[in-house]
């Protein structure tokens, strides 16, 4: 009996129906609603330049757009924070034990100390 990898699709498909239902509802909404005509961009407009200008709020773009200067700064900070966060999460303690998961009022729940040998890395 060959043991080919078989996909673990099984009993837990039921929740998928919720996604299908959501799709149905949204499609119903979209189909029954009418939209105006698309204004589109002027043919000769330099879209990428206007995006660049809109990004930093520099006037004189072919196509108008709001200024995202503050958003740009914020997203920079966010990315930096994300980077530091991920490093922190991945870092191991000096004594080799990982970040322990504390739960239920500070009681050490899991996390391998050096003491228990059988836990593999």
């Amino acid at each position: 009996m060959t043991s080919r990898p078989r996909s673990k699709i099984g009993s837990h498909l039921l929740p998928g129906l919720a996604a299908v239902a959501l799709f149905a509802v949204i499609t119903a909404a979209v189909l029954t609603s009418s939209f105006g005509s698309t204004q589109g961009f002027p043919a000769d407009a330099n879209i990428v330049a206007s995006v660049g200008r809109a990004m930093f709020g520099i006037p004189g773009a072919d196509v108008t757009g709001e200024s995202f200067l503050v958003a740009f700064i914020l997203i920079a900070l966010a990315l930096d924070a994300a980077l530091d966060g991920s490093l922190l999460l991945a870092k191991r303690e000096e004594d080799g034990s990982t970040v322990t998961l504390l739960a239920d009022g500070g009681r050490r729940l899991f996390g391998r100390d050096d003491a228990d040998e059988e836990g593999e890395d």
Partner: protein
Amino acid sequence: MAVPPSYYLLLSAALFCIGVAGVLTRRNALLFLMSIELMLNAANVNFVYFSQFWGNVTGQTFSLFVIALAAAEVAIGIGIILVLYRNFDGVDVTEATTMRW
């Protein structure tokens, strides 16, 4: 002849619902991240289309920010999954149920 708007909306809805289905049916935490990426990109589709629909470049610039944020989100997501793996010997979401009633 310009493509009617409902098609784009249907496309992004489909993408979004596939992402949701991915989250709901799978048990692997990594796949959650992938599905969430899919859902975010569905939103981007809408942004870009409606940017063109309204003739205003804000939609596009905003989708860039969405992508950036998605990246940050994945970074943290991966970190958390790493810790999850270390603590629960696997990334199966249905086993890590200590945070319950």
